[in-house]
């Protein structure tokens, strides 16, 4: 009895070694919720025989708070442009070797030229580019302008929401006044704050979470939000009820990027994944699923449906950049907007 017991740990170790040797590669991807279609991920697993573990987060801030506090183990994360700058500054990213990414060449060079947060894309590979816009329920609202000024309309009072996101709202106000989305000029910010306080009187709440559901159920008639969330709530028969547009003045826009973390356990699998995502047919499937404008030129012929808005609509938009310490100015203004009555 004792002899068998003593052999047991040895057996276990032997077993683990055998399993360890035969184990597949593992890849840990940390991405926004609903940002990649499940069938694309399954195809990756089958094609490359890599065990893909896919976790999701609801916002850049939550993801960064975790990584900054020491969470380890992810290979690929998908931060927005301003967070790419921050992560580069904090030394969290591994440089991208473009020679290992043949499909990088498929990305639209016009889009690459607009990238300011990572010159030359040394640490990031663009994934999706988009902006928040305004959705109007056409069955309830007859005449309106395609502008941020819609939030000034008192007749739509308590039927509208804006995003609970200070860069999006203050950025919209700044653009509406003709200033830059990344302005750190106190006078400009004060004027933007005044505009937002005016809008605040007409909106029900600042909501970054349930605006799509509320809009689809008729609770809200005009929302500032993301197209993909809103259209997800609609079946194809009812899509005509919604008018989604990027306002004429432009607004804040973002680019989400695939990055490889410096402490990534398996960089080889990470490169395989990024390359796979940008292969034309795969990327087309993703764009069809999300409805974003397509930044991969080779994928465009494979698209099966029209995106919710085009790259052309984003011409007046500006990327949200990292503001470093000056973010405090926005914080202060946003606090006063949110906490005041």
């Amino acid at each position: 009895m004792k002899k068998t017991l003593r052999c047991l740990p040895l057996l276990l170790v032997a077993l683990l070694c055998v399993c360890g040797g035969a184990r597949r590669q593992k890849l840990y991807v940390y991405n926004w919720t609903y940002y990649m279609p499940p069938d694309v991920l399954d195809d990756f697993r089958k094609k490359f025989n890599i065990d893909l573990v896919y976790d999701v987060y609801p916002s850049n801030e939550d993801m960064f708070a975790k990584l900054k506090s020491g969470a380890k183990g992810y290979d690929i994360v998908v931060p927005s442009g301003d967070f790419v700058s921050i992560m580069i500054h904090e030394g969290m990213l591994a440089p991208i070797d473009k020679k290992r990414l043949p499909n990088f060449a498929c990305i639209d060079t016009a889009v690459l030229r607009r990238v300011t947060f990572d010159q030359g894309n040394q640490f990031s590979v663009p994934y999706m580019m988009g902006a928040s816009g305004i959705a109007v329920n056409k069955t309830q609202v007859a005449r309106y302008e395609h502008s941020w000024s819609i939030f000034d309309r008192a007749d739509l009072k308590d039927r509208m929401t804006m995003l609970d996101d200070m860069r999006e709202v203050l950025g919209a106000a700044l653009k509406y006044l003709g200033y830059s989305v990344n302005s750190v000029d106190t006078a400009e910010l004060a004027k933007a704050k005044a505009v937002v306080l005016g809008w605040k009187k007409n909106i029900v709440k600042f909501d970054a979470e349930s605006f799509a559901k509320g809009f689809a159920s008729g609770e809200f008639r005009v929302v500032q939000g993301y197209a993909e969330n809103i259209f997800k709530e609609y079946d194809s028969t009812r899509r005509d009820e919604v008018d989604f547009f990027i306002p004429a003045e432009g607004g804040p826009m973002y680019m989400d990027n695939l990055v490889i973390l410096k402490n990534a356990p398996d960089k080889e699998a990470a490169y395989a994944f990024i390359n796979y995502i940008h292969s034309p047919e795969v990327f087309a499937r993703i764009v069809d699923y999300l409805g974003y404008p397509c930044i991969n030129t080779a994928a465009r012929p494979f698209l099966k449906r029209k995106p919710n808005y085009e790259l052309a609509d984003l011409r007046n938009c500006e990327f949200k950049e990292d503001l470093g310490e000056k973010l405090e100015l926005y914080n202060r203004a946003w606090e006063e907007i949110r906490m005041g009555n």
Partner: protein
Amino acid sequence: MNRSKGGVPLFAFVVTAVFFYAPLLVLVCFSFNASRTMTWSGFSLRWYGELLFHSADLWHALGRSVIIALSSSVTATALGTLGAIGIYWYNFRFKRYISIASFLPLILPEIIMGVSLLILFAAVGLPLSLFTIFIAHVTFNLPFVVLIVSSRLDEFDYSVVEAAYDLGAREWDALVKVVLPISLPGIVAAFLIAVTLSLEDFVITFFVAGPGSTTLPLQIYSMIRFGVSPVINALSVMLLAASIALAFLGKGVYRYIFQR
């Protein structure tokens, strides 16, 4: 002459029951709704179909939640019960410190507990995983267990235990054969609350979960910004049905064992 409060308690109970079950009714209705939105458009089983055949992630997350809930609740109940007994009946050097410290996790906002644990794990190099979630859950469950068991001990007639000692019982016997059985309702209540709290938690879990250890509340929370799919409604309804079945089964077993 018995019901000195008359119809008020019954009324309160009915209001409470309605209050509790109204959202559930809504949930059940919408899980059979043909469309995604919150307006009824016809009966359909599509969400159940999607749940059973296309939602492996959800089921894995549920599995992890259950494993953590059970293991952390058992541990918390054990630690907390022993601790409550020790604190309640004895005096020892660090008694005041331990009794206050056991109570504190209740007072702290969850988000701070989550971040502080994350910092601790990062500092000692413990990789985030199901185990770290387990640690966090035991920690926040402890004050509930201690409080509930203590209040049960409050009414415990200590002379029964003294009688046991007088009859020659050793410490272990006194504990297992006298104290624990009498405080069993309190222990069971504490265990149930611990399981409930553990299954629900997402704030603390968010910070201490590692890659690949998503629990059900995390999965749902991450969906919130982007529209919670009605598949979750279907899942909730199934879980509810399962819990009800389990509860009544448990009651039957309990009655069979303890009340011949």
